[in-house]
């Protein structure tokens, strides 16, 4: 299992299929024949990680057909969410396909290549982050199921205690009560928020890369957790992760992971030492080939 490749390879045909759980078309009301998925993000993940299917080979037509068939069956109750999810899936597929179809520059130096990747990095970061939250959601279920086994006492006072009936209703008139009833019973109006207001996390991979190139030689060895301990947002952590992958590809660091989901170990390597490390089989990545 412990392979001999020095870097995280760009294509790793031997990697086992990693999707732990396949959920069958729950959120999106329709099911596409081959890749069964849940929601646009999962579909996307499935498509881009499935080695049997290249993005280029996924025809859009069956996806559309399946969706239209579903739509015909549930014309009345098809939720807006479902429609928008479908649009998103279709748009992402189109984007992926167009990216693949357009010819890329033959030879680019690393810097230019990195700049070109920024957009993709954001998407990738988002995918990774969503994956992490999906994992966290599973953990919430486990935690809450465990917590639910303990039932709290919510009985309150025994009889016979003198509660010096403070007038908790001081200042509450009939109107206030009527307003409270309205608040409690009325369907609350939901303000529409313009998506343009979104504040986007703006750390870029290339900036982080530069920062890491300055920091890492001083650290020598580091664990991913230590390296990212000071970061405030999850996005920054993910961007650091992506930057490390780039550094790995550039041969500046060796990444190792003792076990799946174990902490990532990072080692800064000078060119000569890198070769030595490879020669000694010091690589720990879990890849074949």
């Amino acid at each position, binding site marked *: 299992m412990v392979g001999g490749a020095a870097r995280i390879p760009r294509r790793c045909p031997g990697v086992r299929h990693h999707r732990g759980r396949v959920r069958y078309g729950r959120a999106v009301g329709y099911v596409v024949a081959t890749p069964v998925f849940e929601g646009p993000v999962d579909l996307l993940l499935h498509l881009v990680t499935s080695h049997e299917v290249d993005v280029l080979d996924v025809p859009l037509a069956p996806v559309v057909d399946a969706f239209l068939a579903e739509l015909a069956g549930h014309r009345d109750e098809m939720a807006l969410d479902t429609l928008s999810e479908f649009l998103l899936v279709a748009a992402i597929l189109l984007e992926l396909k167009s990216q693949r179809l357009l010819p890329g520059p033959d030879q680019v130096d690393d810097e230019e290549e990195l700049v070109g990747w920024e957009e993709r990095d954001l998407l990738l970061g988002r995918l990774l982050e969503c994956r992490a939250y999906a994992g966290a959601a599973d953990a919430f279920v486990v935690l809450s199921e465990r917590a639910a086994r303990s039932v709290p006492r919510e009985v309150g006072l025994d009889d016979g205690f003198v*509660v010096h009936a403070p007038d908790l*209703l001081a200042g509450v008139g009939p109107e206030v*009560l009527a307003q409270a009833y309205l608040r409690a019973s009325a369907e609350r109006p939901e303000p*529409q928020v*313009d998506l343009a207001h979104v504040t986007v996390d*703006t750390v870029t991979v290339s900036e982080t890369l530069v920062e890491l190139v300055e920091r890492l030689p001083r650290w020598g060895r580091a664990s991913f957790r230590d390296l990212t301990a000071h970061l405030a947002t999850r996005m920054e952590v993910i961007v650091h992760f992506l930057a490390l992958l780039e550094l790995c590809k550039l041969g500046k660091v060796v990444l190792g992971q003792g076990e799946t989901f174990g902490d990532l170990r990072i080692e800064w390597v000078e060119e000569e030492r890198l070769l030595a490390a490879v020669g000694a089989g010091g690589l720990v990545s879990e890849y074949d080939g």
Partner: protein
Amino acid sequence: MTDEELSRALEAVLLVAVEPVPPGLLAELLEEPAERVDAACQRLAEGYLAAGRGFVLAKVAGGYRFQTHPDLAPYVERFANRDVSHRLSTAALETLAIVAYRQPVSRAQISNLRGVNVDGVVRLLEQRGYIEAVGRAEGPGQPVLYGTTDLFLERLGLDRIDQLPPVEDFLPGAEVAAELEEGLRPTAGGVGDAG
């Protein structure tokens, strides 16, 4: 079931019981003879007393329940009265409003409307004398139905409950609603991403 298992199960069940639980019901629940359950409860009660716990297991109205040791009443009262200066929380006020306008109403009905468990709030309102049980619903479980009390009317300066203002009076008119909606609509023109 060993004696220890029985004691533990009794402690757990009695901890969450709101009303005193008759030994017969406990026996049925734990599938043990009533005599054995009764004896176990008495052993527990004696044990708490002997160990000088802050709570006791009392037999009240034919059932067992946890309550505070009489010695500690001053602390309990201080705790219960800690919010003398406080007003009702929003949650409590909204629950009270639901009871006032929808009475008679069950806890489950209030809970449904508010989307959260309201047991604690209902109990608080009942303890403060603003609401009281006024009957039981028909059907499964026969849940207790609550209504407001005379104290509630008095505090609100009302003579009769039908003097509560009709809620329709407070619904915004159509033009106000339209205006509100307008104000919430995203502004046209590129706002761009806020940094």
